[in-house]
């Protein structure tokens, strides 16, 4: 710690300010995990807005999808009374018990039931209570949903299936209420995997997933359910899949993340500007599979440096795929080795969470490495 601090102090040259920020962060780490959420500005062309948290915007997206598509159904464990995170609140009253219903407690059953519904022409919105519990359904997702259209020669498909699931760190979730399993699914041709960073994005991306004609896994960072509040357009709108978004433009380093980590990187970009006078381009990948190679490649060709950060473990995490592609496409532009700041290659721990996560200080250290290379 002392050594890395010294290195950082050497770079930023503003020891007193840095120490002050560090003290604040150490104090915060004694409390529950929190994210500094910066609200998105709603695009004016989408008109009237409502102040919503992530739960409310997801609920609103499902409400809109169900109101416009009479074949759509929503099901999973405990969704009937509103869901353990309240995402489906009021939907059963609005659309009836045959459209919003509890299933038996079986994840493989839930996903397979959704595949069958979709094959028979219904829009199926399945909920897996925590992404940590999606693995019993892995066979149905990997061998069935992902391969359905391909193996049938497009005679049958389950494109109308969307699987929603809460993911990511929450401060005290330990091994089975914290996982980010996106990379497992990124290895499955035929699937789409999407992670929003906040209420506005979530609504547009979820509506796209529900209406996309391919099976989608929609991973909702649960720490943001109530923590992220912003103005969300009231109308029905979609945000395209497989399109990354340049959230902040910059010229020195490209930062790529998704979900909660995007907000960590936003702070890192700010700190890098303030402390190191480094201009970071911040990109929200949004869709993990199929991912937007062009936006990332264009950015790295411009900046020459890349930092990718995710909560999931390092080895075979999705950052590895991005890093390999970027070194192939931007070899002549790269001015430093691609940095991956990720969870460690351990299970997600309880009391050590603060030490496990790729927090802003670990990311800032990587920025410093890139700058000094």
């Amino acid at each position, binding site marked *: 710690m002392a050594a890395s601090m010294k290195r950082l102090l050497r770079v930023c040259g503003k020891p007193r300010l840095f120490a002050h920020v560090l003290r604040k962060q150490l104090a915060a780490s004694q409390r529950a995990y929190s994210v500094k959420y910066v609200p998105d500005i709603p695009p004016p062309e989408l008109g009237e807005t409502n102040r919503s948290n992530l739960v409310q915007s997801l609920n609103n997206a499902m409400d809109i999808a169900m109101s416009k598509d009479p074949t759509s159904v929503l099901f999973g464990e405990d969704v009937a009374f509103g869901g353990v995170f309240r995402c489906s609140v009021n939907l059963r009253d609005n659309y009836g018990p045959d459209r919003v*219903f509890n299933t*038996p407690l079986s*994840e493989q059953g839930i996903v*397979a039931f*959704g*595949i*069958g519904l979709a094959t028979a022409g219904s829009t199926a919105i399945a909920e897996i209570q925590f992404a940590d519990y999606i693995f*019993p359904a892995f066979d149905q997702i990997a*061998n069935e949903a992902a391969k359905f*259209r391909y193996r049938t020669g497009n005679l049958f498909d389950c494109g109308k299936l969307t699987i929603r699931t809460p993911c990511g760190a929450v401060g005290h979730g330990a091994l089975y209420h914290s996982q980010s399993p996106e990379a497992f699914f990124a290895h499955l041709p035929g699937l789409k995997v999407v992670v929003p960073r906040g209420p506005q994005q979530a609504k547009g991306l979820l509506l796209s997933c529900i209406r996309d004609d391919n099976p989608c896994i929609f991973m909702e960072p649960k720490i943001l359910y109530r923590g992220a509040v912003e103005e969300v357009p009231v109308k029905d709108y979609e945000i395209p899949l497989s399109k990354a978004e340049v959230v902040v433009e910059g010229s020195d380093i490209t930062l790529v993340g998704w979900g909660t980590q995007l907000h960590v990187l936003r702070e890192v970009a700010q700190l890098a500007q303030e402390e190191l006078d480094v201009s970071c381009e911040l990109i929200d990948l949004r869709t993990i599979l199929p991912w937007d190679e062009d936006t990332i490649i264009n950015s790295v060709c411009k900046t020459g440096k890349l930092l990718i950060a995710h909560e999931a473990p390092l080895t075979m995490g999705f950052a590895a795929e991005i890093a390999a592609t970027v070194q192939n496409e931007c070899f002549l532009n790269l001015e430093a080795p691609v940095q991956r700041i990720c969870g460690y290659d351990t299970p997600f721990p309880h009391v050590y969470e603060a030490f496990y996560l790729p927090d802003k200080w670990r990311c800032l250290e990587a920025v410093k490495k890139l700058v000094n290379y």
Partner: protein
Amino acid sequence: MATTRCFGGLYRCLTKVPRSTRSIRCIHSAAVLRTSENDRPNFPGSRSKFIHKCEFIVPENAEGIPVYRVLRNGDIISESEDPKLDKDTVVKMYKDMTLLNTMDHILYESQRQGRISFYMTNYGEEGTHMGSAAALDPKDLVYGQYREAGVLVWRGFTLDQFMDQCYGNMYDMGKGRQMPVHYGSSDHHFVTISSPLATQMPQASGAAYAFKRAKNGLCVICYFGEGAASEGDAHAALNFAATLDCPVIFFCRNNGYAISTPVEDQYRGDGIASRGAGYGMMTIRVDGNDVFAVYNATKAAREICVNENKPVLIEAMTYRVGHHSTSDDSSMYRQLNEVQSWDVQSPILRLRQYLDKQGWWDDNQEIQWKEQSKKDIMEAFAKAEKRKRPNPEFLFTDVYDDVPPHLQKQMDEMKQHVAKYPQHYPVDAHNKMSS
């Protein structure tokens, strides 16, 4: 999968009940216990009565679920159970069973000669296919395992279509992507077969739920073997179908073996049928070599599905006369005389006896039909063998509804590579790629 739920504060709530409250609760439950001595239990999890002696339920003490049978020695055993099918229907059942049998012989041999890569026969189980298929509406959706080709024969899937799939040629509707016998046809409402066992079962429940909501008057039938019934997906399927009131017929082919594993190693209960009641599902066990028993049970099950929106479980007892597949030699784990004893009880021979007694079929017709069907199959076989394989670009399509940029790039790379090194690839066996 046990799911811990994150209700904030619930745990604290439970652990911090004040001592006084706890004692009040105890008194309260004692009072309930006294008043319900002559009453019935009111636990939310079940409905039954109290007993006052410690008695375990011993499955071995119960007699197994009986096997429903209609035909014996070519006669209808009980007049009331006669399905009274007309001559054309019964002759079609017989012809389709024997056609399937002949196709099995030819394709099995062709695999032995290395002309197709893999095959699975249907020997001994033809009756379960025709009996059930005949009792369904042709638009009822079928989910199968892989040993249900007879359902497709019944529905008019052509010999060309069977052969084209096994060869993976340019006319295979599956575009040559799956192994042989993984048939599928949207025209015949037969969902394409996949290799992972039992995955189709909870999918069938979901499709049936969609049918119920669509009020289309149709049901779903889902076939599976007794081995597949050991998968977790089977449990999910039956439980979901029951709790969500899905119009689906679960049709189990219990043929005694899952590859080499005999039923003694597969389960300890009374087969698969005994599980039905455990899920709250109407259930019947039938003689799977008796095409009329299968027909009657399926017809009645269909009525229950469509009229009452309830699932039904049918367990058809039969015997796998052939090897598991062309990759299996079943003499390694069972006696030849065991197999032969079942060969003579085959559903084909038993229906033939009935046809003879009705005067609807004779040896002359038998010879003609065998020759005709063999000729038709050989013709379709020869045609399929000569047809080119699909354009290799089909390797990349249908992964998604459209071809995303990264796959387009990989397709272009493949095409450029093959164009550079055509001598190393079987380009002539395939249709030409676009340049």
